[in-house]
Every structure is written in C-alpha cells, then in structure tokens.
C-alpha cells in the first residue's frame, strides 16, 4: 500500500476520513451544502459492513446516530445551519449521556433558510452553546481540504476517547472546494476506540474518577444491561435530583473537556513573534487572511497570522500566549463577530480587537483583509 493522491472536495475528504476512522453508521437528512457526505456514505458504507439511513429529519438523524453508537459502532451525521439547530437537543443528550458521535456542520448563511448555497461562519456560538445547560463539546475547524480529512479523523479519535459529541465546523467553500490531497497509507491509520469495561460484573456506567475521567462504555447487547437516560443520573445511571450528585456530574462532564483545553488546542501560526498586528481567523476566511498577511509582510508591515483549528474548547491560554506580542488584533470571519467575542473575552492582553465581519454570503477577498490590515496599522 502507499499514500493516496486524489483531487477531492472537502465534503468528500470528511467522508473518507470518517470511514477510515471506522465510521459504520450514518443517518442524515438532505441539506445544502452538506449533502455530498450523505450521498457518499450511502454508496460506501454498505461495502464496508456499515449502514446508511436517510431519516425523516435532522432530529431523527442524530437520534438514530446516538442509538447506533450505543451498540458500539462509530456514528456520524452531517448537516448545515437549519439542521444543526434541529439537532441541538440531541447533542445535549449525547453530551450528558456521554455517547460518542461526530457531526459535520457545513455552514451556510443564516439565520433561518438564509442563503443555502453561500458560505458563512455563523455557527461558532451555536456549536458551543446551541443546546441548553452546561455541557461538554469539542468543535474543530478545517482550513482546507486536507484538513477536512485530518480533523474529521481527529474528531472520531476525540469523540471516542472522551465520549463526547464532536463537531467539525466547515463551510460551503471548504466543503465544495476541490484540492489535490495527499493522504497517508490507509494501513497506517489506528482506528480510534472508546474505553470499554472489562466485565459486566459490578459495571457502573457512569463511574469515573473525579478528575475529569471518562467512564468505560459498554455496548448494548453484550450483557451489561445498563440504563442510559437524559435525566440527570448517578454513577449507576439511575435518575436523581440529589443536588450533590447533579453538581458533581455536571462539573465532571464540563471539566472532562475544559481541563484538556491545552492538549486539544490545534492551530496554524505564522510570524506572530514580532507582529504589530495579528490576524486571527479560521476556516475559509483564513485563506484570504493568510494571503493578505503574507502580502503585507512583503510590503514591510509587521503582521502575523493565527488560524485556529480547535474552536471549542476555546484555547484561551494558547491564544493569549501566541498573541502576547501583538499590539492589535484583527478578526476576519463570515459573521458579525462570534470568534472575535472569544478573542476579546479571553485571549486578548488588553489589545484592541478589530472585528472584520461579513454577512453577505461572499468569501473574503485578500484585498479586503489587506485593506483592513493597512487601516488598522
């Protein structure tokens, strides 16, 4: 075997990565601009002993994925803004019940139906806080087609390892853009596995060490006979309204991910060490941003670039240290300032944060970002 060289689009790369990571169950509902993922899964999964089902809506899709995941298989769905909104309740269920599931959100212009075929990045906050209650979540944002593969594979690793829903936040341009991608030899992949209990004897489905531990997860149908409920539960899985148990559970779930923020932080950084201005972006907005930053450098401006690949948990400490030298921060994003809020709130060292928002369904042009850089300096 050897490495694979292929011209492919982002949605295709996400699907290939998912199957490479062991995806064997996909449930979804057609929605632009994510539908290629469902189409490809419908074709490929039956060949590898997997299952594809087109559900009646996005609520049913994620619910079926959670049900499948409970039998021990890796499950995924893909959607875009309106469908992502519909999935939120079940994402909270997966968070509370600690069911691994991967959700690809190919963002498009909202709110509501918006502009279905145009890119946007308006789901940053929805990915974090779309469901109610304090819950764990991970969101990764690929910046090119190859990263669609890498980060979708990574999404499965994290979802299985930490028993948490993981969102891959792409957008219409990342999803549909075609690039030449060189992928590693498929035999070199290590299929991610969730922690499994050793025996049904004395199995407590939610017994974890208090320091953010992840309890082992028994698949249904293996003699463990455990209860999975969206009610606040004790370590046996029994519903409870005992304040001390509820508090401990919510904190464990939350800290399970928050305490791993630094190790989860993934980013691309360039020339931040001596910059007067740092441009911070993600996804397809970062492509134009990087181009503008390099042009500005060539023209003698001290500008650096930070592209976040991990959006949630927001890598506060990492970002703060990377931006320590920047005197100003510019945040281009295809929304009216969602990532910028996090930068202002947690990452800045008191530097002014300039929002370069866009909500018209068009990609940033490098000239726009370049002009904003010049104006800021």
């Amino acid at each position, binding site marked *: 075997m050897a490495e694979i060289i292929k011209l492919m689009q982002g949605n295709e790369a996400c699907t290939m990565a998912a199957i490479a990571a062991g995806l*064997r*169950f996909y*449930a979804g509902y057609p929605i632009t601009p994510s539908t290629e993922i469902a189409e490809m899964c419908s074709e490929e999964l*039956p*060949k*590898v*002993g*997997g*299952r594809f*089902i087109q*559900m*009646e*809506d996005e*609520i*049913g*899709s994620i*619910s*079926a*994925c*959670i*049900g*499948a*995941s*409970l*039998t*021990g*298989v890796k*499950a995924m769905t893909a959607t875009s803004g309106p469908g992502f909104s519909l999935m939120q*309740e*079940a994402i909270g*269920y997966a968070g509370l019940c600690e069911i691994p599931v991967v959700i690809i959100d190919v963002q498009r212009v909202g709110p509501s139906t918006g502009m279905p075929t145009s890119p946007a990045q308006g789901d940053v906050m929805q990915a974090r806080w779309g469901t109610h209650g304090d819950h764990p979540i991970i969101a990764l944002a690929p910046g090119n087609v190859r990263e669609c593969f890498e980060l979708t594979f990574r999404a499965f690793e994290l979802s299985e390892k930490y028993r948490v829903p993981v969102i891959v936040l792409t957008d219409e341009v990342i999803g549909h853009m075609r690039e030449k991608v060189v992928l590693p030899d498929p035999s070199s992949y290590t299929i991610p596995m969730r922690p499994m209990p050793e025996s049904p004897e004395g199995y407590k489905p939610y017994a974890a060490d208090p320091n953010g531990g992840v309890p082992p997860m028994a*698949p*249904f*149908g*293996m*003699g*463990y*006979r*455990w*209860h*999975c*409920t*969206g*009610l606040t539960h004790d370590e046996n899985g*029994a*519903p409870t309204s005992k304040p001390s148990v509820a508090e401990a559970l919510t904190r464990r779930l939350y800290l399970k991910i928050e305490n791993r923020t630094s190790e989860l932080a993934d980013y691309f950084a360039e020339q931040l060490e001596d910059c007067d201005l740092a441009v911070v972006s993600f996804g397809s907005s970062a492509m134009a941003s990087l181009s503008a930053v390099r042009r500005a450098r060539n023209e003698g401006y001290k500008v650096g670039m930070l592209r976040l690949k991990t959006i949630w948990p927001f890598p506060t400490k990492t970002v703060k240290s990377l931006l320590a030298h920047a005197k100003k921060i510019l945040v281009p994003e295809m929304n009216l300032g969602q990532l910028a809020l996090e930068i202002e709130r947690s990452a800045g060292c008191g530097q002014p944060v300039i929002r370069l928002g866009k909500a018209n369904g068009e990609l940033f042009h490098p000239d726009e970002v370049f002009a904003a850089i010049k104006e800021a300096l």
Partner: protein
Amino acid sequence: MAEFLSYFRRDRLPHIWCPGCGNGTVTGALVRAIDKLGLDKNNTVIVSGIGCSSRSVGYLDFDTLHTTHGRAIAFATGVKLANPKLKVVVITGDGDCAAIGGNHFIHAARRNIDITVIIINNDTYGMTNGQASPMTPRGMFGTTAPYGNIEYNFDLCELAKAAGATYVARATTYHYVLLEDLIAKAIMHKGFSVVEALSQCPTYFGRKNKIGGAVETLNWIKDQTINVKAAASLPQEKREGKILIGELYKSAKAEFTEQYLELIDRLREADPSYIRNEGESGCELNSD
C-alpha cells in the same frame, strides 16, 4: 411473581407512578410477554421517550434507553439498524408518540423496520399535569382544554396501518390477558408492529373529566371498546362510536434491516471483498 421481578431493577423500585395508574399494568404485560417468549435479556433493548409511560424502562433489567421527548423510535431505529439481531421494543405515550414523535412513528412504519412500539394511551399528558393530547377525545377536558377539547383525536391504529406498519393491535389495561397476548404477538412479528394500550390516568384525566378514580376510569375505557371479532357479527348501530380492540391488522412485507443486508449481499456478488456485518451480538429467538 419472583420470576417476573427478575426482569426488574429492584433497586430502582418503587416506581414514580400514581396509585391506580395503568403504566404498571402495561409494563407488567410486556415483561410477562417477554418471559413467555423466552427472550434473552441480554439481547433485548427497550427504548422510551419522555412522559410517565416512558419512565418504565428505568425499572427494567435490560439494556434500556430513555431518550428525548418524541424521539424514542428514531433512537430505536439506530439501535436496530446498527445491530439487527437485537430485539428492540419501544414504550411510548400518546403525547410522546402521536404529537412530538408523530413524524418518526409514521416513517418507521413506512420503512417496516422490525421494532415493536407499545403506545400507552391515557388520553393526556400525565407528567405535566393533564394537558390535552392528540388522543384526548373531542369534548373532554384537560388543563389546557378548560372549556372542553375542540380538536379531533387520532385513530393511532389506522394511522399506523396507513403508514405501512405490518402488525397493528389494540388492547386496554382492563383487558389484560388480551394485552399480554397481543404484545407477545407483536414482538414475534417481523416488521414494524404497534400495540396501542388504552390506559387510565385517574389522577388527571379521570379527575378532570369527573369520571372518578382508577376503577371508574378503567370501566369508562372498557365500556367504549368492543372486540374486533365480536364486532364482526354485530350490526352497524351497535358498533357505532366503539373502539375496536384485538388484532386489527397483519400483513407480510419485506422488513427494512433485512432489506439492507440483502442490499449488501447484492453488492458482494459484484465484489466479494465487501463486508456483511450483521451485528456483533444477537437474539437467538428470531421473529417469524
């Protein structure tokens, strides 16, 4: 008695239901049906949604899945398709199944996926204190129908049949023996099977409608029903306004997960390297 208790998580008892509630009767019927059939506890998954009826799964010693409101059948679809060898039973209520979960109900029926759905229909939302449900009869009262319900209710069995279910039956908590028998038949039917269990909520529905307590509500249910076999020989005027109980519909049609495995087999004819994965563990006792 002792052998039936072995199907329960005894440390989770007593249950949360009101005195006189029908949920225990239906749960008991399910357990006895499972016992009679000799289903393997380790390969039977029981799924529920939200509401009083859906709390039953927490007391049962199986792999149990208490999901979000209305979505039990969608979760169950994932369980069954991922591992078709598992027996999958859904316990749901009239609000859970006919209102918020209506879409999943009809589409699971359309697919004819091998899941048994037991709908405990008590004509009301008991958990939230007696609001009108899609099954509240016209003219009856609820806490959100203080002047009488002006909406029409569903015939859930007709709906299931029209949507593609291949086994449809109805019983009541009064007709316990029939209920247990129909649940057993539904579980053994290959395809989407539905048993509607008319049940009493004395606390809210019975009281709000001045029917009385549990016994009076149970009698009120009984008096509205007529067995489908008896009905066949009765004149139309005697059947008027009556709810039919018994086995209402049965047909044979290819089942969804079986179709999926057949699809894989077709692909394997072209390329034998493809994998046919039927699921890791399974129920020895297969449906007919």
